[in-house]
């Protein structure tokens, strides 16, 4: 264990460094996300007003605000660009340097990203949760923050990140065939955004679609942790959802390994 940490902690430090170096670009994306949240906030406020106030399909306006901002933050936390990175390294040949190192390739990517995630928890998640709870306190007049739910959220978000990492790894193999990484990135974000319920709560979707999406891995990537934070699940359902996340994490782990071993045998780098 100790040996392993010694081996991978430098990757984590490198990840933190990367985020600090590109902090302005990171800030741009955070602010872009917040703008989107505010547009949605006004849209929902207008929807609630047109609906005569009160509840909308089991959500109050306060719920909606928490949902919007927390799913956006969760989206930032679980964001993984490992697929694009592998595609890039294959193209310029630098992946050979990684393969030569006496480390597990997956883990070296994972730890580099974990460094970024750690920074995001400190600079994004904590201020966001504080802000949301202050907002909720101002609106409802009582302190509703539930530390148990928050712990469930953290556990579930960690699993969500692992799933997102594996999904991205699988997605990244498309980069072997297509050069338009920018287009693929947009495609990935909007498809995952929709399927994961982070744009529209799954609870608002037609029954059949909702049930399907709840079982797909995408809901595990964002919707599950946010719902856990909001305390929308009963006790047995919490365990069921977390269990489902674990199952998906394992399945996708297997799938990405399978693709990786298939691809690595065919790896052929031209020039460099």
């Amino acid at each position, binding site marked *: 264990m100790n040996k392993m940490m010694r081996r991978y902690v430098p990757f984590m430090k490198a990840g933190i460094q990367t985020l600090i170096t590109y902090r*302005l*670009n*990171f*800030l*741009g*994306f955070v*602010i*872009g996300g917040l*703008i*989107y949240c*505010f*547009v949605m906030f*006004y*849209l929902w*406020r*207008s*929807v609630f*007003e*047109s*609906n005569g106030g009160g509840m*909308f*399909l089991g959500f109050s306006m306060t719920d909606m605000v928490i949902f919007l901002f927390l799913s956006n933050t969760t989206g930032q936390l679980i964001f993984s660009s490992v697929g694009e990175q592998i595609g890039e390294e294959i193209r310029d040949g630098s992946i050979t340097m990684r393969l030569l190192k006496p480390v597990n390739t997956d883990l070296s990517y994972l730890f580099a990203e974990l460094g970024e995630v750690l920074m995001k928890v400190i600079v994004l998640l904590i201020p966001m949760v504080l802000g949301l709870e202050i907002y909720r306190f101002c609106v409802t007049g009582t302190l509703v923050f539930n530390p148990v739910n928050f712990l469930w959220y953290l556990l579930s978000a960690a699993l969500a990140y692992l799933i997102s990492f594996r999904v991205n790894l699988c997605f990244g193999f498309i980069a072997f*065939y*297509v*050069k*338009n990484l*920018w*287009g*693929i990135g*947009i*495609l990935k*974000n*909007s*498809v995952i*955004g*929709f399927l994961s319920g982070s*744009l*529209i709560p799954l609870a*608002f*979707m037609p029954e059949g679609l909702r049930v399907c999406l709840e079982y797909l891995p995408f809901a595990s990537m964002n919707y599950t942790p946010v719902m856990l934070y909001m305390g929308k699940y009963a006790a047995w359902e919490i365990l069921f959802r977390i269990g489902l996340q674990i199952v998906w994490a394992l399945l996708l782990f297997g799938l990405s390994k399978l693709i990786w071993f298939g691809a690595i045998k065919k790896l052929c780098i031209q020039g460099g």
Partner: protein
Amino acid sequence: MRRIWKIYRLLAAQNLKRLMEYRADFLTGAVSFLIDQAVGIAFIFIIFTQIPQLAGFTFEQVLFIYGFSQIPKGLDHLLSDNLWCVGYFIVRKGDFDKYLIRPINPLFHVIAETFQIDAMGELIVGIGLLIYASPNAGLHISVWTVLLSIIAVPFAALIYTSLKIMTAALAFWIKSSGFIIQMVYGMNEFAKYPTTIYSLPVRILVTYIIPFAFTGYYLSLYLLTGSDPWFSIGGVILVSCVLFAISLFVWKKGISAYESAGA
């Protein structure tokens, strides 16, 4: 003028050849933006299963506003996508030198260099929504409203382009301004929905400071109500020309401040 047109055609032809070479890329790009749009529209559908009207607008009217807002956005995306690259890396890597040593206007060269076909996603959705929503949106169709609205579209696209020129030009001073383009451009989200749903400070922001409201809502409102052309059509022309003038000024200042980076 003729020379400029000829150069533009040559550069655009090069772009099209590149597209034919990487057909799969072109498809992924266009499909990606199409799906991105589909999600936005699905959202409106789901809202309207529960409520009859949003801030006084019917389902078709909201779709109309949404669709209209995508056309100037797509037009700008089609023609001036290379400005993103100026902000993100062309200046930082010192590659901007190439634009300065050629006998054509650098800004024109930057813009003419890329013909971004991904924008078809936005244009197809925008036009599709207008066709779908028009019959039931209660439009005031007359020669004037239609003609003025069509004239206004390029000016609305110019608002996007000007904001991009201005923010991309900041890279001449700070090397990489991609994140600033991202932030300012991101405000176009506000253009997709009726501006009346926002609170007063936001409305002032998107009308007078980063005037995306003119690229969608105000223009649609003119077609929907037939009133106030001076504010909507006149507004978009005035605002876009003023912004464009400012952006040219910033760009010019920027180029004289540009120092090539060693690579």
